[in-house]
Structure formats: structure tokens, C-alpha cells
């Protein structure tokens, strides 16, 4: 990659990272997506003559951290649309049907498993499939706040002296070596940097508290957040953060542990030793 195109990529990455101001629908609700925090197995469909439905047993198992209840199993889409959920306990604010997951008041503990049956009405007896989401409606930490994200840092990087060998901007150097800015890096560590960069930039005491910022950070859409086009935080991170905060852990210590030192909520991130 020549220098011009390389730096163009740098600009793209940093511009996108710096302009992350998305408002996330899920964050506006009182529910938190904890799908990635559970291991979920679905049985095949069994036709139930008495109810004239196609039933499937869904088994949810808690992973490393507990998930506060109540917990909902939300059917986010059915294909074809003629198939419907017949045992819905209600719908989410955006109209998705859900069933309640039978957990104790404390929620789903790590390693604990529970099952719930979903019943689908399929009058045409067509082949169908559905997508789902597991939502926790436990006590929330913080409030949603609107924040446009940190500003880009492109101009400053462009002005740094370049290493003649690598072509990278040199931040600080000694005879033995230097720290250089490789803005093409995209890996789990940059994902942590982008996420925590968003949260720390958001923090403004009296206006936007740390809990608010952790809660309001844009949610990653994939399991490779470093490849996403803008700064985001995995949903699992806030879920862990919330759990720890609810357990009484101080906010800075919680953020450092969940998002940086342990960091298990970030896919493939090894954390600090």
C-alpha cells in the first residue's frame, strides 16, 4: 500500500471512529441484549395436536457472569411472516413478541440452565425459521445519554514526523526504538481502545456519568468489533458492567476490570495478565 492510500485508510478509520454518534434502539428501552452471554440450544419442532402449534424447547445456560432477571426470549423475526408465536407473553416496545424465561428473582446465574417452550402457529404448515434475542430487564445502571463521540485526531497524526523505514508517524523515540502510530491496526485491542475511548470521551461529571456512558455506548453488531465501521462496545460488556455495579463495585474499578483488565466481553481479547 502506498503512503497516500495507506494514510487515506488511516483517515477513514479514525474519522469513522471519531464520528460514532449512533443512537441505538435497544439502549432506549429498559431492556438489555444479553444474547451473547447465554449459551442457547433449540430442539426441533414438535407438532402439538391439542394446541395446533409447532413447539420447540429452548434451553438457555448462563456463561461466565450472572444475568439479572426478568429475562425475555424475544422472537425478532419469523420467515415466512404467516407463522406467528402463539404463546407470547407480550411484545417489546418495538412490537416483537416474547416469552418469559423462568428464572429466579436473582436472574440466571453463571452455569445455570433453564428451558422455555415456544409455540408457533403455522396454519399453512410451511417450513419456517425465526431469529431471536435474549433480553434482560433487570435493574438498570445509568441512563441513556446522547453523545457524539470523540473528535477525530487525523490532523495531528498527519503532522507527526515519519519513520523513514516504516513510514509511520513517530510519537516518541529513543535510539533503541520508538512508539509509532500504526492506524491500520484493527484487532481486539483496537476494539477495546475504540470502545473505552468512546466511554471516556463521553464522561462529563454532572452531565454524563460513567454509568450513563457505559450504558449509552454504541453496541457492536458483530463478533469482530474491530472490523466495524465505528466505535462500539459489545453488549456483553455493559451486561457485565451492570452486574458488577449492581453488586456494589465502584464505577472506575468496574470499567477497568470489565472493559480493559479482564475484557472477556470483547471477542478474542486476551486482557491484561
Amino acid at each position: 500500500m502506498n503512503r497516500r492510500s495507506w494514510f487515506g485508510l488511516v483517515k477513514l478509520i479514525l474519522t469513522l471512529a471519531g464520528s460514532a454518534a449512533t443512537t441505538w434502539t435497544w439502549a432506549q428501552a429498559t431492556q438489555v441484549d444479553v444474547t451473547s452471554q447465554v449459551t442457547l440450544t433449540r430442539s426441533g419442532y414438535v407438532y402439538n395436536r391439542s394446541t395446533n402449534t409447532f413447539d420447540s424447547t429452548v434451553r438457555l445456560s448462563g456463561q461466565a457472569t450472572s444475568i439479572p432477571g426478568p429475562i425475555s426470549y424475544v422472537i425478532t423475526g419469523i420467515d415466512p411472516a404467516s407463522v406467528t408465536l402463539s404463546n407470547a407473553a407480550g411484545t417489546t416496545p418495538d412490537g416483537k413478541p416474547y416469552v418469559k424465561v423462568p428464572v429466579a428473582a436473582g436472574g440466571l446465574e453463571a452455569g445455570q440452565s433453564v428451558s422455555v417452550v415456544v409455540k408457533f402457529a403455522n396454519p399453512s404448515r410451511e417450513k419456517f425459521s425465526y431469529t431471536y434475542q435474549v433480553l434482560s430487564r433487570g435493574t438498570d445502571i445509568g441512563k441513556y445519554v446522547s453523545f457524539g463521540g470523540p473528535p477525530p485526531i487525523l490532523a495531528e497524526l498527519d503532522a507527526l514526523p515519519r519513520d523513514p523505514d516504516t513510514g509511520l508517524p513517530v510519537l516518541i523515540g529513543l535510539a533503541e526504538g520508538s512508539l509509532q502510530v500504526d492506524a491500520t491496526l484493527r484487532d481486539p485491542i483496537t476494539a477495546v481502545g475504540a470502545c473505552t475511548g468512546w466511554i471516556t470521551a463521553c464522561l462529563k461529571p454532572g452531565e454524563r456519568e460513567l454509568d450513563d456512558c457505559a450504558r449509552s455506548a454504541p453496541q457492536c453488531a458483530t463478533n469482530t468489533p474491530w472490523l466495524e465501521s465505528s466505535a462500539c462496545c459489545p453488549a456483553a460488556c455493559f451486561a457485565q458492567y451492570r452486574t458488577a455495579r449492581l453488586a456494589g463495585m465502584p464505577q472506575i474499578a468496574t470499567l477497568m476490570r470489565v472493559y480493559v483488565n479482564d475484557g472477556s466481553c470483547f471477542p478474542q481479547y486476551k486482557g491484561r495478565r
Partner: protein
Amino acid sequence: MSVLFCRATLLIWLVGALLIPTNALAWDSGSEDSPGPMEARNIWGWIYSAGPRPFHDNEHARLLREAIFRSGLPLGLARDPSDPFKLSVYTKDAVVPGVGIPTVHPYPFLAANTKRIRAYTIPGFAGLPDHSYSLADWVAGNETCPPGTTSGALDTAVTCHTFQFHLGLLNSTHFVPQSQNTFIYYHNLALTRAAECKRLSDSFQSSPLYTTAKSLLDEMSTECEREALSLEAIGQHFLQDAWAIGHMWERWGYPTFAQFPAINDSDRRMRALAVGLISGLIHGAESKTHLPDLMSYGHSHDVVWEKPGYPMQPWGIGDLHASELLQDPQYVDQREFFLDCSASSLREVYAATGMISGSLGAAAGTRRNPISECFNQRATNSAIFRGLGLDPLLAALLTLIARHTTASPYGDVVSPALGDEIRTDLVAITVNAALMSILFPSETDLAEGGLTDPGVFVGSEKNSATNSVPPASYADPPLPWPGSSGTGTPDWDPARWIARAFHKAHVKDFCSNSETDSATLKQRVQGASIVDRPIACEICTEFVSRQMRVNGQPSVCEAAGVPANSFTAPNGVSNRTSAAADYCGCGSHSLTLSIRVLNVGTYRYDWVGGYSSEPMGIECLSNDRGDISGSCSAEFTHGSIVKLFSTWRFGEACGVDFSHMRECSYLPPNFTGWSGDCTGNLSFSDELTMDKDRRCTATFTWPIGTP
């Protein structure tokens, strides 16, 4: 403070970093064109500087000079590099391997064959720890690498003294709290030595010899006092650092490479480098960028320090800004507390000596306990974050690239695992610093080792974790020097090296030491080659003269309190040096210098001219009217080579008040020439072989028409 502001902080820092070359120094070392052995030949005080020559000081020297003025110490102890103290060091006529300059390494007296003059000032020694590992290291000319300062087999005396290796990687002792323990160690060395100096001068003054050999004995006592104050000056470097805001926090790392946990030497070097770079990033790199640094530059409500019991959080300032510290009213709190600490400590040491260098005057300011009151100031969280100047995303994008240069000959490569470890830890530091500075800007958690949890960065502990007294194994050895334990080795014997260099101060030690045994010294003269004989004679005469009784008076050694080994000069020999030279088989001859000033008018000028000799002995001065003062005649060992060097001083109108220096002009007379046994020019005479008594005259003539 929002992180929008943090990004603004980053902007300022990056603009400040524009001029950093890839091989930049990170800290304010001043010039280091020729690190290592060459640099040790400079007079401390003309290096590590931030002003125009010739009257600039390095910052450490300037601060110590200010403290001397405040402390009430004799002003002569604050003398600047234009008039340094000198040490006569016996060494070997050889060059430093790989460097090609003459060695100054103190050599055993029984084997030395040449002599070098080492110039130094006490304020200048406050800058020493940025260029040498210890006083012994400087005495040895930075020609060896102290234990623990090499990172592998390819290191040399140059690379191990390169500023970037030393300060960049091993300067944990320059940051609190290791700086406190380093200061304590050197301050105690100074006090111990000062007490020994007092015992020496008391012993001299109670001896009958003092009435006839006062200047000789006082010369030994004052060299002892200067040695004690040199140790204090080195210790004060660390006190001064503790009062630079860029050093008011616990950095990670260690004073020796061996302490860095690593899987191999290369990994160790890279870890030390990463720790040094990030520490430097927080401290600042203004010495190279010449642009305001975010932390040391100060001038910000965010850059403040906290001190328990102190009623406010004053603005802080640091390296390269000593002028503002000393003059800007904004920094009065930092200035006054620091100078009080520094002056109190100096006064404590000098008061413990016999004060032969001059009486102790009244002190200005407030007396402080330098150990308990002067090291607990810390930069606030807001100051630390400002110094770091990163945000988490940028921290994650940083990659350590090793370089292969003459200063770093190893060709290291940073492993992917280590690179990830560095980036991960950097993100952690940055997130933590951002949060703490925003939520608790006035607290000092970050400076007190809280930048990382659990105080480890890239495998290195915060420096309080290994804070012994002294923290660095290469610190100067415990007294007494040279000591009798024999712990030193030919390659590393710092106690003996220092004692050899300050051999007049250590007169007692060398009165009963195998290295200066009179019979052995004499034997060496007898076996010396023609080339080596002059120095062999000089050494023998120097030490034997201390043991020689003349005119029914005790010897110098007896006057010093060492009764053994003295002997009486033959009847009729009344000169101690002549008697010693005769004993050694060398003899001596006198050199007498006259200074003539012609065409003297009625007007008084400030000019005072004259000549001093090398070897030392003659210090002959004339004022503008030809009135002679000082020592114009001296004995020199048979066969020695003598050279006379021009000296000058300011006259009465100029005094010693440097503030008058610019206003003080003088009109020197013309140098007419040498006569007698000397030839040469105004600046110096040609070399003169002392194979007989010699007489020389230097003539000066005022221009015709001079009032």
C-alpha cells in the same frame, strides 16, 4: 473536564512533538554530542544546559548555586566553570579503547605513569547523575560500565553511558520515591564524609605543624570538604528532580537491566525501552522538541502538585523551566519550598565539616528537614493525564518499533506478543488516567503508583516496589574509602578510584596504605623507565613528603592523626618536598617566576594577571601596578615537565558579584614576552624541563598614553 478537552490536550502534545526525530532524546539532557568517556571530560556545568555559552549553567547546577546562596555557605563553593576546582589524577598514558582519547581512570599509584587534571564545580556535580552513574563512574572517566548497566555483550563504555540508555531506560531513581532514597543515601555519605573532614581539620589545627604548614594542611582539609559537598551535590540532583513536576510520580522500572523481568536480553531491552518511552511521554520531551511540553512546561490549571499539609495546590513546573521556577511569581510556592529544602540540606552537610573553606553565614528562608519534609509532593491526576496526552484509541494504535543503530547495536525485534502486551497496558493506563483525571482531578492516585493496577506496566513494577537505600546497586560505595575490606576488583573498585582522585582529601587513608608505602614507591622510581620516571618521582615525592618530619615538626600524616610510617628528614634538610624527593631519588628544583609590569600610570585598572603552573605549585599574580602576590616560586621534581598558564581575575571593582560582570570592563596591558629560562606566548609558556633551578620573567607593558 471533558474528554473533548483531552483530545485538545492531545493536539497540543502532538504539535509539540513535531520535531522529534526518530532517534530523539526524550528528556532534558542538554547536549550529548559525545556521550560516555568524552562527556566526562567536560566540566560539569557546561553541559546539560539551556542557554547561550559561555555563562549558561545546566539547570541542576543553577538550582544548586541558588541554594548555596540561600544556605549561607561560603560563596567560593558556588564557583562557576570559569574557575573550577581541580583534581590531580595519576593515571596511565593510554587511550580509552574504542574511543581514542586519553584515559583519566585513576590508576594504582605504583603503576601510574602520567597525570591528568580533572576540573569540577560543586554546583556542576548536581548534574552528574544525568551523565554518569556515580561519582566513581565520573572519576573513572565514564570508561567502564558499572554493574547492571549493560544490556548485553555488545554494550561499550559509550553505549552504556548514552543518555538514552541511562535516563531513558534506567532512570527510575530520578522519580519519587526512589529519588528520596537515593538522596538519603548520598546525603548520609556527605554527612559521614563531612564528619571525617572535621576530624581531619581538627587534628591538623591542633598540631604544631599547623603554624608553619597551614596552607598545605588547609588545602587537604578543603579538598575533603569539597568532596563531601560533591557527594551532597550528587544527592541534591535527586532532591531537585523531586521538585520538578515531571518527576513527581512513580514511574515503573528499575535502575539496572537485570531487574527487568524478561525471557531473554532482547525481551528485557524492549521492555525497558517501552517503560522508558511511556515514562518519557508522561514526563515530556521538550528538550528535543523545544516546544512547550504538556506537563513540565506548566502554565496550566491542570498541572498542579499536592503536598500533605500544604494548604493549596500550587501550579507546577519542571525540566527546562528553571528560569520560570526561579523568577516567575506563579511558581513561588514550588520555588520557596524547594530552595528551603535544598539550602537546609547543604547547610547541614557543611556545618558538619570543619568549615575550613569559610565561615557559615546566615541562612535565608525557612529551615526544612530534607528527608521528612521534601519528598512527599505529588503531581495531581489532572497533571499526570495531561502529561500522558493520549486517548485509548490512539494508545491501542501505538506500536513499538526497535531500531538498529550504533547506539543500539543489537538489532532487536519486538515480538508480536510483547507488542500486544505493550498496547494492552497502554490502553489500560490511558483509560485509567482519563477516568481519574476527570472524576478526581485534584487527587494524586495516579502519581502514587495508581496508573496501573496492580502497579505493573509491561512486566515492570512501580519504583516503590524495589526502593531500597540506595535503590541502585551502582551507587557510590559506603564509606570509608578506599576501605580495607578489599571488596573491589581491578575492573570495579569505586571506593579506591574516588580516594585516588581525591587523594589529598584522603591523606589519612594513604598514610597507611600499601599502595603508598614509601619504600615501595622509592623502589618503583628506581626501576622506572626514563618516560615513567617523572611521574614516578612526583607520586613518590607527593606521598613520602606527607610522611616526612622536618625542622623537628611532626609529619603531615602525624598531624592528620596517623602516627605510623613517618620518618625524619636528614639533618640540614628543611624543605619537606626536597627531603621527600631526595628520599625517592628524585630531588627537586625550584622554579621562580617574576612578573614585570612596565609603563605603570596613575590610573587604577581592574586587571589582575598572572600564571599558574602545571604541575601545580605556582600561583603567581600581579595587579595593574606590578604588585606581586601568591606563590611565585615552587619546587618541582627533578626531570618533571612544567608549563605556565595564564590566569586572570576580576579586580576589586568587579568583585565576585556576577551580576556586575557585564558592566565590568578592564584593559589588559600588552604581553611583551618571556625572559630567563622560559619561552612561549601570553597564554602559556613552552614546556620547561626541571633538571636544574629555573627562573622566568613575564613582562607586560601598558600602552603609551595610558593614563
